[in-house]
């Protein structure tokens, strides 16, 4: 088993853990964490495959960089929605 294959399998496992987490956990912030774990798994598959040849392939590296930024953008948006929903909920709780 080569190094690339090893990390590829780990990446798929991370994706699976994240996927299960998204489906099984009710807590929103942890759902968001799970989606991020999914994303890390996907990126790991990309990077692992990129290093399977003799020389590293830089195109997947660039794709993962784009992916990381997009992932953080999505996470930030989700968290801001959580905060806004939470802020709307509070007055009701007090009343």
């Amino acid at each position, binding site marked *: *088993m080569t190094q*690339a*294959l090893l990390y*590829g*399998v780990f990446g*798929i*496992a991370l*994706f*699976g853990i994240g*996927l*299960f987490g998204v*489906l*099984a*956990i*009710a*807590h*929103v*912030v942890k*759902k968001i964490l799970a989606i991020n774990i999914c994303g890390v798994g996907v990126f790991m*598959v990309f990077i692992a*495959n990129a290093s*399977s*040849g003799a*020389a*590293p*392939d*830089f*195109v997947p*590296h*660039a*794709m993962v*960089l*784009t992916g990381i*930024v*997009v992932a953080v*953008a*999505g996470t*930030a*948006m989700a*968290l*801001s929605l*959580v*905060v*806004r*929903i*939470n*802020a*709307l*909920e509070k007055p009701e709780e007090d009343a």
Partner: protein
Amino acid sequence: MFNNMTLSDSAKQEADLPGCVLLIVGMVVVAACFFLAMSLVQFQPTDQPLVTLVASNLEQSGVENPVTAVLLNFRSYDTLLEVAVLLIVALAVMPFSLQDTRLPFIKVSEPIERSLVLEAFLRWLLPAIVVTSGYLLWTGAALPGGAFQAGALLAGAGILLLLAGHHSFNFNALAARLLLVVGLAMFLLVGAGVVLSSGIALAYPVAMAGTLILVIEVAATITIAAVLVLLFCALQIEPLGPQPNRVEKEKHL
């Protein structure tokens, strides 16, 4: 099975799916991952045509770092759209109000509690961070690093400034909006401008490629830093309605 999605409004609850459903979901996920992993292991990797293509065209890309070459030259269109994604997120989290558009971008005020250590620290650290991020950007052409790393570092400086309590940012000011769009605008401008010389959108002339990439990267760095600081602000301050902590600050003025 997807009822759990509806719970997303209450962030403090920790309810799980019923056990049997959970078991089925788990088994499906495990089976799918097992199939994926097996097909990945069984697959014999072939040659990677892009490795040689990237290497052989690197000289004409204007930069030495292959990742930067892919991001800002070979597949620059992806990066252009990625900057658009950042703008979307900035617009989504921005606490918009029509009144604030005329207020200045940076407001200086006395902090509620002063921390001398932090202030002294900042006085030295901030210039250092700005210089370092400039350096990261510059070396991105040859070594690992580039617009995103530099932007993140620059955003760190902005957040430290916020934490010190002297300054607050108003993202509805025209200057702030300019910072948010400058990355996308510059990318589009360069991408369209090169049509005059090469006839193809986003195709830089080889001689000027390095300079043009740097111009785009500087603008992108500024936008990235601004968006990241905005994200941090949006999560720190109550984003809806009149904000209580802002009222407090006004009292101290």
